[in-house]
């Protein structure tokens, strides 16, 4: 959060950080076939139906909203 909001030039860092947060929150055990099948689209989506993925998505959304707020504030600043 501090890195992203420290400078206008660093706002773009929100993109890779949010993407990593969400993608890395997948439940690997499910992909291994112990839950939903890992190879299919349904299986891929199923890996993200976890509390961990929900928490990661929430954090990513907060970061994205903060970055978006900075952009709005920057554009409307006199």
């Amino acid at each position: 959060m501090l890195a992203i909001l420290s400078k206008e030039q660093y706002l773009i860092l929100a993109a890779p950080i949010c993407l990593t947060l969400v993608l890395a929150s997948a439940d690997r055990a499910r992909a291994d076939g112990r839950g939903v099948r890992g190879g299919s689209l349904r299986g891929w989506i199923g890996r993200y139906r976890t509390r961990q993925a929900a928490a990661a998505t929430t954090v990513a959304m907060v970061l994205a909203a903060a970055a978006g707020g900075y952009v709005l504030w920057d554009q409307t600043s006199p």
Partner: protein
Amino acid sequence: MIFDDIVNGHDNAPADLRALGLPASWAKYAGHYYWDTVSVRNDPLYPRYEAKLTDGNITHFLLTHPGRMLSIGQQAAIDALQFRLGSLGDYPPSAGHPPGTVESRVVVLTWLVRGLPRGLGLAWLLPLWAAMAAVAAAGLRSGRRRGRDWYAGAAAGVLCMIGCAVAAFIPPAYFAGISTTRHMVGMNLATALAAVISVALAVSMVTRALRRSRAGAEQPG
């Protein structure tokens, strides 16, 4: 950015200005940045064309001139690999150090990067990012197959840092046009972090592969 990197006096300035929707007479400001004493901000036509000096207009120019995108990116990468400016010290005069003295904890990294041949720029950064991404991909696959969680975590960290390095490269290279070396600190830091984790990941994977192949060779047929 526009008068430092696009209309910089090295090529056809009127054509570039036309593509940007700016008056050809502004070719005289080539190489003069915004806060220079000779600057476009003092031109009588400035209020009329100020609305065209935007990131959107620069983006449109770069997308329609990919060759310029490459050359500007290459120059920015060369500036980035300077790592730090030799003319700037780290201490105030009251600290008692000679002018230009730098804080030395990061000198190893600076020394290593400055050991690279001059002028490599993107020819160094792009293969480095690609190699680190390949190590991360191998780490993800190996971690999944062998149940090594730290491989997956390290790989995600490397991929995130590569993404941050690429993202942090874009604004100073293509939109700031001033103090590029200093503004590339985020890109350099992210690349350095990715490199350190990649090396650890690669060393671990190679060591384990060697150990496995040795154990396989020792087992009786």
